[in-house]
């Protein structure tokens, strides 16, 4: 399609960001859930701190239930998935029904997981849906700008999360390189200086994670 509104550019970008946020936080939550099987209460405060989300959970069980499933918690995985869905649903004509379907299915799977005694099993289907969503974005969306905006959203979110989670240099460098090559092919208005700064930061002997987070959050004009 030749023309694209500002609103749709914005939705594509945030669809990329929220799909990544759900994917990564779901995987992290899975690791935490696993460790809490033996550890019992506690341990989730560190999880909240690392993601910079308020720890308003009153117990491990409260965290186990609310963090993935609560519609009332703006930081929950559910809320982030619904934000991805809210963007996707308004992009049907842009991304296609086949692509949108994977976000829709992820919503159904998360609702199903909420009723399960073993939600980790159900979460695999959500991770599969998001991976399939990214795959179909590449495979089915003809418009290069559309594809690139979603992917840039995904990269920005990943660098942000990697910065908060203090992920290793190799992974961080890979994401910064991918973003550098992609963002200029989107039509998005961004700060070139931020790209230069990020590349400079990943070449330093010590990664300044808080500074990386600050930079990436200011990338769009």
């Amino acid at each position, binding site marked *: 399609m030749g023309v694209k509104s500002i609103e749709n550019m914005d939705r594509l970008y945030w669809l990329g960001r929220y799909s990544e946020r759900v994917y990564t936080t779901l995987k992290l939550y899975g690791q935490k859930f696993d460790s809490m099987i033996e550890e019992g209460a506690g341990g989730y405060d560190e999880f909240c701190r690392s993601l910079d989300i308020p720890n308003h959970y009153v117990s491990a069980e409260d965290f186990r239930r609310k963090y993935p499933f609560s519609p009332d918690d703006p930081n929950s995985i559910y809320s982030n998935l619904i934000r991805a869905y809210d963007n996707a649903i308004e992009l049907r*004509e842009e991304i296609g029904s086949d692509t949108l379907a994977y976000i829709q299915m992820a919503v159904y799977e998360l609702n199903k997981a909420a009723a399960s005694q073993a939600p980790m099993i159900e979460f695999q289907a959500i991770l599969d849906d998001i991976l399939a969503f990214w795959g179909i974005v590449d495979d089915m969306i003809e418009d290069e700008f559309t594809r690139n905006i979603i992917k840039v959203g995904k990269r920005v979110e990943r660098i942000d999360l990697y910065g908060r989670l203090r992920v290793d240099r190799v992974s961080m460098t890979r994401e910064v390189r991918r973003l550098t090559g992609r963002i200029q092919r989107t039509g998005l208005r961004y700060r070139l200086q931020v790209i230069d700064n990020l590349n400079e930061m990943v070449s330093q002997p010590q990664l300044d994670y808080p500074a990386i987070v600050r930079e990436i959050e200011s990338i769009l004009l």
Partner: protein
Amino acid sequence: MELFERTEVVNALLARYGVKFGIYKNNTFHEQLFPFDAIPRVIDAHEFAYLERGLKQRVDALNLFLLDIYNKKHILRDKVIPEEFIYASSGYLAQCEGVTPPGSVYSHISGIDLVLGKDGEWYILEDNLRVPSGASYPMIARELCRRSSPRTFQAVSVADNRSYADLLKQVLDHVNTGGLTVVFTPGRYNAAYFEHSYLAEKMRVPLVTGSDLEVENDHLYFKDYSGRKEQVGAVYRRISDDFLDPMTFRPESLIGVPHIFDVYRKGNVALVNAPGNGVADDKGIYYFVPKMIEYYLKQEPILHNAPTYLPYYEKDMRYVLEHFDSLVLKDVAEAGGYGVVFGNSMSASQKEDFIRLLKSEPRRFIAQEVIDFCDLPILEKGEKVERKADLRAFVLSGAETVVWKSGLTRFSRNPDSFIVNSSQGGGFKDTWVLNQ
């Protein structure tokens, strides 16, 4: 049949693709799946040819009526329709006086609701000439049914209904005054948002909201992300007249486009369907459609209305009061199955109140004989049961008038109800038009 056994599979696929409609309950928006029943309504080629002739005739007459009523008004001068039925109609828009849309087409997409009576006759229940919705549901259902049971479609030769988006695009191209074609939606919290986005996808045209469009120098433009403006020549608008343009209609509308009506009035954009069509699908005007066919086309109507009475006429009022319990009464201002009451379902006090209202506002209501229309089989927990069903046929008018070889068959899931609307809990079926 294999397909029927796969109803659940098709419903799961419809859920996968987000085939939903929106509904407001207690002022909160909910998205609901539209239950699909895999047993189709089947219309053979001969019967469809008859329906096709009748529907084209009806829509052609309605288009001529709209052209006449907003211009020369011959039908009023010749006293075929009383003036007050026009000027008291909430669908009549004085702003449309003297405005002729591109190609002189007013109702480009007409949704005509019919039922098949137990006497074997088809009856028209309602004409929907403003923003009729529903074509997308059988379109996508057919796609998924073919995927679920290809053998069924090898065995039965059914006219392919998946070309609806192409037919629609041809109509839009025909009236396009030069520039982009867009689908204009009020937004995702509209009941038919799925349809808006699906048709935009299938026509490969942008889906826009009011904030994406702008009027400048008597032309309409789409603003893209870079600030570039591209002229728009046809707007398939899925927003009601009232909210279309705050400078012309409701000033508080935040979802319309200021001055879009001025652009239309000057012939610089096609609005599809044309504003002002509500005067022709008013339930009160419905009574006069057979007379329109005779008046404009000099033909006998092929398809019949359900027997209808206008309490506005003294003779009809008497009949309505005498046969109150056997009639269905409809408020002409309501739609979607609302404002419909059955005489025999009222308590004595309700009846008394209603009759008082009817006498004080006779123009507001019509009364119809309750058509004993055919039930269709549906699957309920694997068993076949019979339920009331109607048919919404889609007639498209551009260079010529064509009837889409399919339609939306809606059914009531309540065994005691005649009301089939999705907003009232109904489901839908595909409509097969056989090639033979």
